[in-house]
Structures are given as C-alpha cells and as structure tokens.
C-alpha cells in the first residue's frame, strides 16, 4: 500500500508541476506561483484521500534527490558571469553581504516581537536565500525546512510583485544595483523580473542569487544564535 501511495503521489506531484508551469508560462503572472499552487494541489489531494504527510515523505525524498546536483549547477551561471563579479566586486561584497545579514536580523526581530516560537523565528531567518540553501540552513539551526520554503515563496512572490517599483521609489536607478538587489532579496522570481528590465540586470540578479545563498549559509550559524 505504501509503495502504491508513493508512486501515485510522485506521479501527481509531477503532473501538478507540469500543469501549473504551463499555466504560469501562458499568463506570466507572479501570482500564479508554481511552487505554491503545486504544493496546494498535492496537499488538497493528500487531505482528501486521508493520507498523512508521513506517508508522502518517502516519495518526497525520491523527488528531491536531484536537488543537490541542481544547486551545484548554480555555479554555471555564476561562472558565465564571472567578469561581472570581478568588475563590481565592492558593490557585490558590501551590498549582498550586508543585505543578507540585515534580512535575517530584521526578520528575526519582528518575529520575536510578534511572539512567534523559536522554530518559526529560525525558519524565517534565511528566507532571503534561494530555497536549496535556505531550507538546509534552517534545518541545521533548528527550524523547519517546509516552513522556510513557504517563507521563501512568499518573499519571492512579494518581490516579483512590488520589488521593481519599490526600488524606483527608494531612488535606486542604477541598472547594476537594481539587478543585484532583486537577485539578492527575491531569488529566482526576482531574477526573472530583473531580466524584464534588461540582460545586465538579469545577469547581476542571477549571480546575486547564488552569492546570497552562500552568504546566508556562512552568516546564519553566527547570526541566528544571537536572536533566538
């Protein structure tokens, strides 16, 4: 029975990914978030069939097997844009480094002021990094990777909707700075939005996304214990 559940839900997860990806490609709205809608569809069917999360887990482990190699593959766009890293090294180091620390610190302060539990505070902290970095960081520090994934998706969706206009309102007009900010804070979705402004913005954003993940992983073990 467990094998049957596993096979069925792997097939269903793949199907809902394909379906919502097509929908997203067709309408291109940041609100049609593939991760959010895909997960919602799977959860709905699990609840409807009365299958607990624990029975979905073996299938989830099989499906996420290639996430490690996929994250490693982020080095490829980083390598392709290495001339940008060299050219803007100061902007990148100060900007991405401080923003990553500030994002973790402000999230944890607000969560603590709001009286949230330790697990939630820790899970919120790395949400500025892309999920493959944020989720294991949260898990190592005592958070819940699923919660972190949700916060990442919420952050990225917010960023895709409001990021570019927020930057304009804050007086950030330099194309390099705009790309860097979108990639650092709003990962993949931010990068996609930055690409709509131009090639250079997109390249900066993609690179900043990878670096922000590395910075988050390096800073988190030092920063998170100070706030929880």
């Amino acid at each position, binding site marked *: 029975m467990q094998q049957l559940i596993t096979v069925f839900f792997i097939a269903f997860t793949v199907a809902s990914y394909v379906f919502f990806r097509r929908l997203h490609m067709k309408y291109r709205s940041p609100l049609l978030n593939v991760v959010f809608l895909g997960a919602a569809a799977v959860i709905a069917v699990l609840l409807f069939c009365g299958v607990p999360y624990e029975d979905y887990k073996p299938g989830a482990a099989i499906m996420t097997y290639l996430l490690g190699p*996929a994250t490693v593959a982020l080095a*490829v766009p980083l390598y392709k844009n290495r001339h940008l890293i060299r*050219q803007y090294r100061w902007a*990148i180091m100060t900007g991405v480094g401080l923003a990553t620390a500030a994002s973790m610190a402000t999230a944890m302060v607000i969560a603590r002021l*709001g009286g949230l539990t330790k697990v*939630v505070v820790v899970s919120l902290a790395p949400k500025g990094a892309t999920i493959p970095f944020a989720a294991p960081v949260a898990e190592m520090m005592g958070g819940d990777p699923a919660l972190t994934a949700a916060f990442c998706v919420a952050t990225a969706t917010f960023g895709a909707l409001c990021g570019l206009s927020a930057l304009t309102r804050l007086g*950030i007009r*330099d194309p390099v700075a705009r790309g860097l900010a979108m990639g650092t804070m709003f990962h993949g979705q931010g990068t996609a939005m930055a690409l709509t402004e131009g090639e250079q913005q997109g390249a900066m954003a993609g690179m900043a996304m990878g670096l922000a993940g590395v910075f988050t992983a390096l800073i988190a073990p030092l920063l998170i214990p100070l706030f929880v």
Partner: protein
Amino acid sequence: MSKALKFAAQLILLCAVSWLGNQAALLSGLPVPGNVFGMVLLFGLLCLGVVKLEYVQEAADFLLKHMLFFFIPLAVGLMNWGRLFYEEGLVLAAAVVISSVVPLWLVGFLAQYSARRDKGCNS
C-alpha cells in the same frame, strides 16, 4: 557520443560534485549545507579549467530550468503548519515584507554607490 549518453554523463558529474560537497561539509564539521560546498567546488573547478563548461552545460541548464519542481515536495510539509498561518498570518506577513524592503534598499543603495566607484576604477 549520443545526446542521451552525454546528458547522463553530465548528470553523473554534477551528482559526483554534489556528493563531494556533502562529504566536505561532513568532514569540516561546519554548520554549512553540503550543497554550498558543492557549488563553490564546481565554480572553482570551472575557473581552474579542470571542468569545462561543455562537461556540464546541458544537464545544468535542464536542472536549473526545472528547479522549481523540487520545491513542491518540500512545500507539501506545510500541511502540518496550517494553524500557524491562520493564527499568526499578520506577524508573518509583516516580518516577510519589512525584512525584504529594508535590505532591498540597503543592497540597492550600497551597490549604486560602489558600482559608480567600480565603474570609475575600470574606465
């Protein structure tokens, strides 16, 4: 070499780097995820020319294109957290928005300031 074989070989190479990254993380004893080591390792190997772009290109593009897929099974774990969003939704939304906008301004401002300097250095 046929396309499928080439793709499989590239995938195996990426898996190997990922595995090495995990081993490095375990051996170092640092609280840093293995995939961070893996990504830095692949970046280093590419820069040194040990691994050429064409050894990994197609498999890397494919995995990156469909990366969102892997996040769906991860996010399904949320079904155990329904009450949290119902009860604390406002605090969570405030935390997400404020902790996004403040650093967004910070990185934008610092990058705009130093990008001008970097441009000056290079011209």
